[in-house]
């Protein structure tokens, strides 16, 4: 095959769950060779056993899908669909006790030679196994690359590829539930109905253009403008629902922002520590924004710890700042951190203004150091309140309403953790973590289509307001119709022509 890379790739191919059982998949022409470099078959694996320890045990390879007690010496020689028992070795040191599945092209998910290493030693071990595999000749797979290869090799069609992608991407129970409900959703019924209405209006306009002597379009534009307002409002609601779903599926993209040394990393570790959250590198993040993924109860959070954001003339530092800003732009939530002990200074305020416009929760960290009230005065009622400077800081970041007050926090003793969690749930799930009954999961492409459809309807309204002739309306109506069709996976074909003839009495 030409046109896409066909080197050997590897990645953790299961979602990282707290249980720690996971698969490292190696796919490509060198899959067996790479696997053999790190795998030693057999029970006798010990610190000094060589890669051929398995064959010394004299066990025979079997065929079929079952676990065989007699693995062959090398993966390269194993028959297809064999499962081998053994150890992953780093030099002489065993890293994990594993089962390895050998799949031969084209009878694998990617239709390439594939080795799947089932690890048991927990997430950190899983990551170490992957690193070993990468060191031994495999390239890190890009997100979705296995599925892409499966598609390019003709194993699955586009729709299947997308569905698989979504399943893989479903990071927690809530998202999984939403995935299953996808096609039952009321949302898709709504979209179908809206699409039908758009088609009717297009057919009317077209009929009037085609047969102006029989069909009058007088006074039509006002009526259409009213309908457009309603349709756009409905799409807006769907978009907001879809956005909520994205958060459910992909997690709340959270950025920790703050000056150096206000304790961002400690907060990150605290959050990751709770619930034994899983830490993993996510491909594509930059060196200076460390991205971590965690599940916190049923909630997926992607934490991005950014380099301090500030004005700088240093070109190298500027790159880091730009990256941090980019992470901020994409964030759903900013945890703005300041040091309660040393107090709020101008730089904290500048940072607060920099994150304004995002959903912000302000954390006053290191309260464990300020048991006596810190640098600012405290009220005498035993309750510790934010000082005016601290409140001004939170306000500068645009934190408002119930969340206006900064949370007094301590990464050392966990003060404020419950409050933080409650705030996040309030902000993103209106206090409830159950998806609504009419949930339907929108993938990125579907969300884009939804937004594009709404934009197109807006353009039609713009054309009406600009006094454009009616036939110009159908250009953007057709776009909206097409985009909504993409969501439902429907083709356009000759629906319009059929509609014109079905609804309007034409000519001669």
């Amino acid at each position, binding site marked *: *095959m*030409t*046109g896409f890379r066909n080197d050997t790739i590897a990645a953790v191919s299961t979602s990282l769950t707290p249980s720690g059982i996971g698969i490292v998949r190696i796919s490509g022409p060198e899959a067996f060779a790479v696997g053999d470099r790190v795998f030693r078959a057999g029970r006798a694996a010990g610190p000094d056993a060589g890669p051929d320890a398995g064959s010394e045990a004299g066990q025979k390879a079997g065929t079929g899908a079952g676990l065989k007690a007699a693995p062959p010496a090398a993966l390269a020689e194993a028959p297809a669909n064999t499962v081998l028992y053994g150890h992953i070795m780093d030099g002489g040191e065993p890293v994990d006790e594993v089962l390895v599945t050998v799949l031969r092209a084209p009878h694998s998910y990617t239709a390439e030679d594939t080795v799947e290493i089932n690890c048991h030693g927990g997430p950190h071990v899983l990551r170490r196994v992957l690193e070993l595999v990468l060191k031994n000749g495999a390239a890190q797979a890009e997100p979705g690359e296995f599925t892409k290869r499966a*598609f*390019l*090799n*003709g*194993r*699955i*069609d*586009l*729709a299947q590829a997308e569905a698989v992608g979504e399943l893989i991407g479903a990071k927690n129970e809530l998202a999984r539930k939403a995935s299953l409900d996808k096609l039952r959703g009321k949302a898709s019924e709504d979209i179908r109905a809206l699409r039908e209405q758009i088609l009717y209006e*297009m057919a009317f306009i*077209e009929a009037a*253009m*085609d*047969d*102006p*002597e*029989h069909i009058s*379009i007088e006074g039509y534009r006002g009526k259409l403008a009213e309908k457009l307002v309603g349709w756009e409002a409905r799409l807006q609601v769907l978009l907001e629902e879809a956005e909520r779903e994205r958060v459910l599926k992909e997690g709340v993209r959270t950025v920790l922002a703050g000056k150096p040394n206000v304790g961002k990393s400690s907060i990150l570790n605290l959050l990751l520590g709770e619930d034994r959250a899983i830490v993993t590198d996510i491909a594509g993040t930059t060196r200076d924004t460390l991205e971590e993924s965690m599940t916190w109860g049923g909630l997926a959070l992607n934490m991005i710890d950014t380099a301090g954001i500030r004005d700088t003339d240093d070109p190298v530092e500027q790159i880091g700042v730009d990256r941090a800003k980019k992470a901020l732009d994409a964030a759903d939530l900013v945890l703005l951190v300041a040091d309660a002990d040393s107090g709020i200074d101008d730089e904290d305020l500048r940072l607060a203004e920099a994150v304004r416009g995002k959903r912000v929760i302000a954390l006053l960290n290191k309260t464990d150091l300020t048991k006596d009230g810190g640098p600012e005065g405290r009220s005498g009622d035993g309750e510790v309140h934010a000082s005016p400077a601290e409140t001004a800081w939170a306000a500068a970041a645009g934190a408002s309403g119930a969340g206006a007050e900064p949370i007094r926090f301590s990464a050392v003793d966990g003060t404020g953790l419950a409050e933080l969690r409650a705030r996040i749930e309030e902000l993103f799930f209106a206090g409830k973590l159950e998806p609504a009954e009419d949930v339907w999961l929108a993938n990125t492409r579907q969300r884009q289509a939804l937004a594009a459809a709404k934009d197109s309807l807006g353009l039609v309204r713009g054309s009406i307001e*600009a*006094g*454009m*002739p*009616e*036939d*110009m309306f*159908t*250009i953007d109506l*057709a776009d909206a119709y097409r985009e909504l069709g993409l969501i439902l996976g429907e*083709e356009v*074909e*000759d629906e*319009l*022509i059929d509609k*014109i*003839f079905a609804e309007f*009495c*034409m*000519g*001669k």
Partner: protein
Amino acid sequence: MADVLREKCDVIVVGAGHAGCEAALACARLGCDTAVFTVSVDSIALMPCNPSIGGSSKGHLVREIDALGGEMGRCIDATFLQSKMLNASKGPAVHSLRAQADKQAYTRRMRQTLEAEPNLRIVQGEICELLTGEGPDGKRRVTGVVTASRAVWEARCVILASGTYLNARCLYGDVITHTGPNGLQAATHLSDSLRALGVRLLRYKTGTPARIDGSTIDYAKMEPQYGDVPVVPFSFETDPAAVQKEQELCWLTYTNETTHRIIRENLDSSPLYTGVIEGTGPRYCPSIEDKVVRFAEKDRHQIFVEPEGAYTSEKYLSGFSSSLPERVQHDMIHSVPGLEHCRIVRNAYAIEYDCVDPQQLQASLEFKEIAGLYGAGQFNGSSGYEEAAAQGLIAGINAARRIHAQDPVTLDRADAYIGVLIDDLVTKENREPYRMMTSRAEYRLLLRQDNADERLTPVGHEVGLISDERYERFLAKWERIHAEVARVKAVHVGPTEDVNAFLRERGSTELKSGASLADLIRRPEIDYTAAAALDAERGEIPGDVAEEVNIIIKYEGYLARQELQVQQFRKIERKVLPDDIDYLQIRGLRLEAGQKLQKFRPATVGQASRIAGVSPADVSVLLVWLRGSGRDTEGGAE
């Protein structure tokens, strides 16, 4: 065999209707020795149905035919009785010229044009059989035809433009005649010859309304319909001054409840409803009984009364197609205001005929399986004079190019309405006579009737049907348009009292700071012509240039958006699918899609994507396969 006639020429055109005439003229003008056969030399370029050329989207086709060097535009400019720009109050994409024709004048002029062509012979006679042989590549190719008199005509290319004559039968009530339109002789043998060659045929149906004696109409009860002043000609070559003349009137009247009652009471005697008619009728041109049944909520339907020609008082009743029995037709016509006492000259009738399933054709209109054989016009399952002429022109050009060993000319959906027409015919599963509509053209804002020359005259010139002299004039016109657009964008208008008074007067917002003249032209209340008042520098600008400048400025944003859509479209449109693909062997392609593709053998991925039963996922698989097999090539469409 000694006493049968044997003749030889380059191209034979079967049929001298609107498709046949354009095909024959194109071939002859491109240097091919051409013979055109007709069952009646007196019926060359006959208009057996409506007495008009053009109309919504059909006007576009006529302009495109003209831009490529065809004849229809020149012919109607010389013979029209009334002319109108439809949709003039709407956007420029749907403006469409329509002219009432003097039928006999049109026929006569077209015949004279054919006769004046030195490479062209007109022959009266029915073609009964196609002769084929095996080409050097092992593929079947056409070698000639046999006439009803057993004469053998050898030819390297044959263009079938048999219209509605193949196995035609005309019906109203229980009356059936085995004739072509207007009682002309049908062609009864060619269908069998085609079937013997493995060609799939369809059976289509269409109809025409009654004609009445104009001197028996009470015009006082009807609304007059006037032509435009000034008249805009179809052809680039027609001097606008030459078409300003006294125009004939058309008239508008309506059916009523009485008419509808008569129709409902007699539905059981309509061959459409009794099942006598088997052919598939067009939905866009329903008979009056169809309209009354399908749109029962409408209490009246429009009837336009149009002249058949200046030579006769006969009138055409547009909107009154029917195949009801003669007595019922008389009753229903007499129920219409103005027609109470009219005399009926010809009854309405439905006509059934054989045509080819056009999915057997390539975009060049050559048969996929028979080299040198082309189809055009109603034979290809279209309807309408303009659709026919457009196909005739393309088939003629490509037959001539085949003779000269040149690559065929094909137009895509973003090039022209002609491209949309042919693509729809050859890739989609049509079940009724195909009529052009503006809604079929996805990129219609770019495919306007006003810029047909910009889109296609370079092609016509390249092909050899547009003279150097005309091409130079065309280039000069567009140079002038682009220069004027640039100038208007650069003209600055200040917020002076004069300017604001002008804006106030037109109900437009006053200027607070300066603006470009182009900004003001974009306002709905103002256009390029009106903006002359603010444009001291403007020289003498011809009407066609002014029209173009106005459109380019006013709709700039929309035009740019469509250009983008076209770029997207062309990405897959021009990816060539090699001839020898075995679709059933492509992994990942659904069986249904594989079978469809195997059957229709599309030329490009774009064409494949429009075949019913081929899903977007199948198209992705095709693209992947092309890339994977290293056969990913861009075709030169055109």
